[in-house]
């Protein structure tokens, strides 16, 4: 499960590196689709450390 912290600023950097194209960046929301395999690449890419993978 991906947790999006409320300090996310919807810049889309995470979406850009997701090979599975599963992050939808709305103006003020991030939506992860079911294709996410929890590889964690987007978590590392975030400039604000706003993503966290929870078991």
């Amino acid at each position: 499960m991906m947790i999006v912290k409320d300090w996310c600023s919807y810049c889309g950097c995470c979406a850009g590196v997701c090979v599975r194209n599963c992050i939808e960046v709305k103006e003020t929301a991030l939506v992860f689709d079911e294709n996410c395999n929890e590889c964690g690449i987007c978590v590392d890419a975030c400039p604000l450390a706003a993503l966290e993978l929870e078991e």
Partner: protein
Amino acid sequence: MIKTDVLVIGAGPAGSTAARFAAKGGAKVILMDKKSEIGSPKRCAEGVSKKTFDILELEADPHWITREIEGVRLVAPDGTDVWLTNDVIELPEAGYILERKVFDKHLAMEAGREGAEIRIKTQAKGLKKEADGSYTVTCECMGEVYDINAKILIGADGPESHVAKWAGLKAITKPKHMESGIQFEMCNAKMERSDVLEFYFGSVAPGGYFWLFPKGDDIVNAGLAIIPEMAEKSAYEYLVDAVNNCYATKDAQPVEINVGGDPVGGLVKEMYNDNIMLCGDAASQVNPLTGGGITSGITGGKYAGQVAAEAIKVGDCSKKFLKKYDKLVREDMGHDMDKYSKACDYLWSLDDDELNNIAHAFQDIEFTTIGTTELVKALIKAQPKAALKLGKLFL
């Protein structure tokens, strides 16, 4: 269903320029962006070269130019600096600092004035390829979902670049090529000169640099970009440390925080296919060394718009026809991108001591002109290992 000749997704500098030139060439154009306000929030340090306005065929307007830049200051990790300013040497490319919130909006307006229809707060959600080759894009605007069918789709959706992935183009940015960028816009900054760009290299920003781009006497964009693989903490933590340790910004106050990805892997493999073209960050039209993507995105956007209009005119939107776009872009910037990409592989490989040595060696050199050749010669003198990697490229 709404039908159009050309649909441009994303109204950043690349998309608005593409829409403007496609409309100017006689095509029916729709330009859309998910943002409520085009240009905001900004994700940029706003530095741009003067030649950008020749490409745009626009006069530089004081409404969106905050500062004219007279030079650069390069700072090594131990504080040794190298000044390259217009009063001492002839700089090959001078520039401006923009107010992008105003500039981006202005470029969209120029597209609107040429006849493009603009839809804001409108997000592309997915696309379908039709039997006749055209694309149907599903859009959402304030809860309403509808389709737009276009003979040519231009993906200018920035570093997220969903359009390329939906269309199956080989255009994915690898994590090691996505800079994680972050910046404060600050007041109370104490710059030695408020018309000079400052760049700080080394462990302050692994895989990138820390920059100060002045926007006023005491106003500055203070930011950095890192490659996460090379980093030990988040970009935000690097930025807070850099700002606190830098004389110019330690007492400065932030009025904005800007974040974003910057694709620096060089032009993507597939910038086009039947009925589709990519431009701007979506095609990685970004200088890999500086991370600058405004000028190159506008260049790509202009070519995409022009080629789209021609394709509509002759009624041929095939891959074969659109190849012209790829050729124009690669001829214009392909060679430089390869060169800069190799230069930054080298630069990012240096540790703080090596960078300090280079800066020390530069102290003894009097530059009068600043061709890349002079710079590289000085570099090789200071750091012979550079000769192997850079010599062949630049000399």
